[in-house]
């Protein structure tokens, strides 16, 4: 029998609760004109509102899907429904040979993979195409100038706000934050625009969020100060600052660097939609390197095509990290493959180790506000606050709705279990936890 994902893995693949519900609704073979599968792929025909049925194709392990429906969700409800059938009633899948369009899709995937490998090999072997370095430098200089202007403006604006004080500033006004944010977009510094908007969101929550607002403004000020130091900065720190401002590092540059080949544990996955762009973030932990990686995939909402790694599984492959201080963001340099857990498996931290790691990271990179973790911990409640407590009895404040913390309590049963999430310096944000013999996503499609 093919190694189809379990129902929990399918649940974890769903982009949000509504897609999951709709997908579950389609998890009945009777609803499909055709639902079939083999060792490699699943495919099906589902009659939609149009004349022709939707053609749904999924790799047998759920890591890639394609559907002719117009959904902006990924995977769409049809792919989730088909995966649920494979997970729950594999015997109901027709054993017919793949249809022509399935063969074409599989062939095109194989062809693309081969081409990518060839391209990578060629790129490594062949001399680089001549780059008009002069023009490139000119473009960079022009953008640098704009960004520098933006930085001056923002420093002035921040200074004015500080002079005036929160009490007299229209902090809850949308335009108060949006005007400088747009100015940063015009200055080609989208990273700064994002930071201004985040500060605006904190301000909108009222005076109780003033400490958070002060933290964000402080970090923004620090970034602006660092940005004005330019070449005086350490190269890694400069790379970090440039990316925070909004400079992008070409993927080729990242892939040209060294990679970290390891057994990677898929600890968590989140999906968020912003500005008609869907971003999938997969958090990976390397067993040998003992380091965390953040694999980001983005696609327009009209055509979201991602590779999805099921939670709690191990893959083997090489990740190339973006330049920066204590970088997390990485790209697959070599194709990854599913693998068995390495000897030792997942190593779980204590809260003390996490806090030490957090302090050390902040010492190197003040803007690293979210740190992934995997603790052996239990959920508990005290003083009206939920806590994530490790085996030594040390506890961190837990962020989550009552429903989420109840779910976590139900799963842990009062005993420490592996929990993955993000530590933001004030609260632990749970993203996934071990449940029985599998892993359970705690994001429910929300953003981290």
């Amino acid at each position, binding site marked *: *029998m093919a*190694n189809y994902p*379990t*129902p929990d893995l399918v*649940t974890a693949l769903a982009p949000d609760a509504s897609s*999951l*519900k709709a997908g*579950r*609704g389609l*998890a*009945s073979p009777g609803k499909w004109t055709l639902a079939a599968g083999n060792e490699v792929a699943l495919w099906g025909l589902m009659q939609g509102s149009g004349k022709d049925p939707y053609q749904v194709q999924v790799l047998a392990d759920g890591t890639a899907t394609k559907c002719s429906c117009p959904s902006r969700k990924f995977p769409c409800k049809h792919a989730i429904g088909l995966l649920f059938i494979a*997970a*729950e009633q*594999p015997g109901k899948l027709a054993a017919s040979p793949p249809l022509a369009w399935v063969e074409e899709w599989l062939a095109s995937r194989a062809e693309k993979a081969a081409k990518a490998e060839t391209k990578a090999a060629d790129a490594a072997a062949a001399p680089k195409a001549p780059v008009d370095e002069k023009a490139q430098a000119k473009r960079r200089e022009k953008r640098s100038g704009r960004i520098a202007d933006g930085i001056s403006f923002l420093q002035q604006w*921040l*200074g004015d706000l*500080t*002079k*005036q*004080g*929160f*009490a007299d500033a229209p902090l809850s006004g949308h335009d108060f934050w949006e005007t400088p944010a747009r100015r940063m977009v015009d200055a080609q510094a989208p990273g700064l625009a994002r930071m201004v908007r985040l500060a605006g969101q904190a301000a909108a929550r009222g005076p109780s969020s003033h*400490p958070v607002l*002060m*933290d*964000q*403004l*402080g*970090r923004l*000020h620090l970034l602006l*100060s660092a940005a004005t130091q330019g070449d005086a900065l350490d190269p890694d720190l400069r790379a970090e600052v440039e990316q925070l401002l909004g400079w992008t590092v070409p993927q080729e540059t990242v892939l040209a660097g060294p990679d970290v080949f390891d057994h990677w544990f898929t600890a968590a996955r989140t999906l968020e939609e912003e500005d008609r762009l869907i971003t999938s973030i997969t958090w990976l932990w390397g067993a040998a390197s003992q380091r965390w990686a953040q694999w980001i995939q983005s696609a327009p909402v009209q055509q979201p095509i991602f590779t999805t790694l099921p939670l709690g599984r191990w893959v083997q492959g090489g990740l190339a990290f973006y330049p920066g201080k204590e970088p997390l963001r990485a790209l697959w340099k070599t194709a990854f493959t599913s693998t068995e857990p390495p000897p030792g498996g997942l190593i779980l931290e204590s*809260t003390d180790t996490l*806090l030490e790691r*957090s*302090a050390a990271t*902040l010492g190197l990179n*003040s803007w690293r506000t979210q740190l992934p973790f995997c603790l052996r911990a239990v959920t*508990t409640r*005290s003083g009206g606050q939920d*806590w994530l*407590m490790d085996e*030594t*009895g*040390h*506890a*961190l404040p837990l962020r989550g709705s009552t*429903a989420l913390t*109840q*779910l976590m*309590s*139900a*799963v842990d*049963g*009062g005993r420490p279990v592996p929990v993955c999430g993000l530590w933001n*310096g*004030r609260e632990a944000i749970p993203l996934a936890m071990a*449940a*029985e*013999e599998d892993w*359970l996503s705690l994001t429910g499609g929300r953003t981290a």
Partner: protein
Amino acid sequence: MNPDALTTLMLLGTNRLKTPPAAPSPVLEGAWAALDWSQPETAALAACALTAAATSAGFTGRCDLALPEPSDPETRPVAPAATGAILRHLLSGEMPECLPEWLECCAAGGWVAAPRDLPALLVKATQERPLRPLIAAVLGERGAWLARQTSQVDLIAPPADPDDSVWETGTLTERLAWFKSTRQTDPARAAAALATAWPQESGETRAGFLTVIGNAPHPAELPLLESAIKDRKREVRLLARTALMALPQSTWSQRAFARALPLLKIEGILLTKHLVLHLPEAFDAQWKEDGLEEKVPAGSKGLGPRAWWAIQLLACVPLSLWADHFQMDFARLLTLNKDAASKDVILTGWLESAVTGPEPASAEALATYLSDFEKWPATSPAAIPGFLKLLHVLPDETAARLVEAAEAGVLSSIAPGQLFAASTFPVPTAAAPRWFAALLPRLQNPVYSLFQTPTVRQLARRLPLAFIPEALAQLARESTLTSTSETFTRALEFRLQLHQSFTTKQTANERE
């Protein structure tokens, strides 16, 4: 760390700065000293950056909390993974009608629900009281622990025998529970307690206690019932009548027999034999004492006072009285009720009697007689609700046969599918083939859907599991399916999948 001074500065603005704020913590004093307050805005923002980093980097968490008391180990296995997936479908709102079925299967198999499903099950228990016992049966040790943690233990605790004090001080629910429990162990004591409290109780409360008594009264309750038959609240009087009809030794029943017997006579011979109704001439004041009403209820068109009194007198005696009195099978007696002027009055009285003091054999004869609806008495309430009341007192198999017969008869043209939709009994296996054969044309009604989607799913829920494969095969043989039939098919498939998930061995893939 005390960031108040800096917060105050940021709140009021550096324009109002008189003296630079002190370092909020000794560990920051070195860095704080390097801030250049001659440029107050820059210094204040840098101070914010410093405190942000220090707050995060210096976070210590709590180490004074006790580890929670863990749940006891589970004594029963967790239901197979495939069943958990089905449960999540059900809890997300798909096929909610099948949730009780899942819970029953899980409990019957000796399993408990998976921990991750427990919060949703507890929410369900909050929302749907009738499901609580079923949910409690699958929560296991972990669920009970979680309910204690979340103060939801009342939702799932089996009702304890109420303490005697609740009879004096408890809520209505608690007092009803006490009465129900006590009358099982010491009916005389329960009856005495109720009799003492009766005069002070509200009409609603009095009706509540009589509902507990239902049609299974204890002789000790007789004095109370004979007083309740004169109650000022109509609902209480009717409930008391239901109870008294089950106590033929009561003086009330004796008086009811004595009054009813002169009403009906058989006259004529052979083919001219027929039942004759002698309407009462006047309303006896004693009748009112026994719970009868003198005035015809508003809205009873074409019903005179004497006919109304006769209906009530007939309704107060069990149907078996007539079979015994005339020494004749009740079904045969029905055929003798052919006097056009009186037959509806007699039938209405008998219908009331049949649903009040259930006697399944006589009720079946009456329901069979009325199942073509052409003989439905004009003096009686609406036919379909009335017929459904009759079905409630019948065994499921009989009810299924009668629905099938009624749907094939006159209902097929005036109200097709209505009895299928409104009845609620589970269809017995033996009756399923014919019942489904009668239902299928209704599902396949080509012009419009006779049923709403929840009704279709309920219909599928009522079909016995053993018959589902056959029903699906029959549906598959149809050349086209209406959307109603498709919904019905999906519901049957879902039920089949639900049961298979409990019986199919886990595959290696599922266990992985």
